[in-house]
């Protein structure tokens, strides 16, 4: 497995775990199973954990294959990245519009903010997921 594919896996799994936890917490707060006041702190901690996870895991993978990590993306890897970003962009537009639409269903400011954040997370997961699929298929 190439360094870029490992990198895509790291980002995909890190985002899934960290924001999976965050949105579970949001859902519990919306259902009244948890205090709502500290959600901002949970978000800040989630972002910090995501950054640390990504940096540490990328360093570990880079140590295992330093030459791969140092070399720039080649044309095939750039193509995968561009195609995956394009798919992620369409998902972002649709999910963000759906998130904004919740405003018209009576959602508050914070809920709309969380809906847009969810749209970004889904788009990122789609992008990294698509990149992984391209890497697995080989083209």
């Amino acid at each position: 497995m190439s360094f870029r594919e490992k990198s895509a896996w790291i980002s995909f799994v890190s985002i899934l775990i960290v924001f999976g936890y965050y949105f579970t917490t949001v859902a519990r707060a919306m259902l009244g199973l948890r205090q709502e006041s500290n959600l901002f702190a949970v978000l800040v901690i989630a972002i910090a954990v995501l950054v640390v996870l990504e940096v540490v895991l990328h360093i570990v993978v880079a140590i295992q294959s330093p030459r791969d990590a140092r070399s720039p993306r080649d044309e095939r890897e750039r193509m995968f990245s561009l195609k995956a970003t394009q798919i992620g962009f369409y998902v972002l537009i649709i999910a963000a519009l759906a998130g904004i639409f919740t405003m018209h269903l009576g959602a508050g400011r914070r809920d709309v903010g969380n809906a847009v954040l969810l749209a970004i997370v889904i788009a990122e997961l789609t992008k990294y997921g698509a990149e992984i699929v391209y890497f697995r298929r080989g083209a």
Partner: protein
Amino acid sequence: MADAEIDNNIRRLRFEHGEMTQQELADKVGVTRQTVNAIELGKYSPSLEVAFRIALVFKLPIDQVFSYRGKLKR
């Protein structure tokens, strides 16, 4: 298995050139080993520039490394 309409002789040429590994060819061309593998298997059609660089490694004209089996669109 070949998804692309471009065939190539890279595998044979590598062995005729001192059993050159995919990694050695990749380093000379400036792509990853996985990309060389995808080209060899016909899963990925390289850019013209990479195709020329591969031909240059084997010191052959490009049409002795790659061939096109597609047809013209009328």
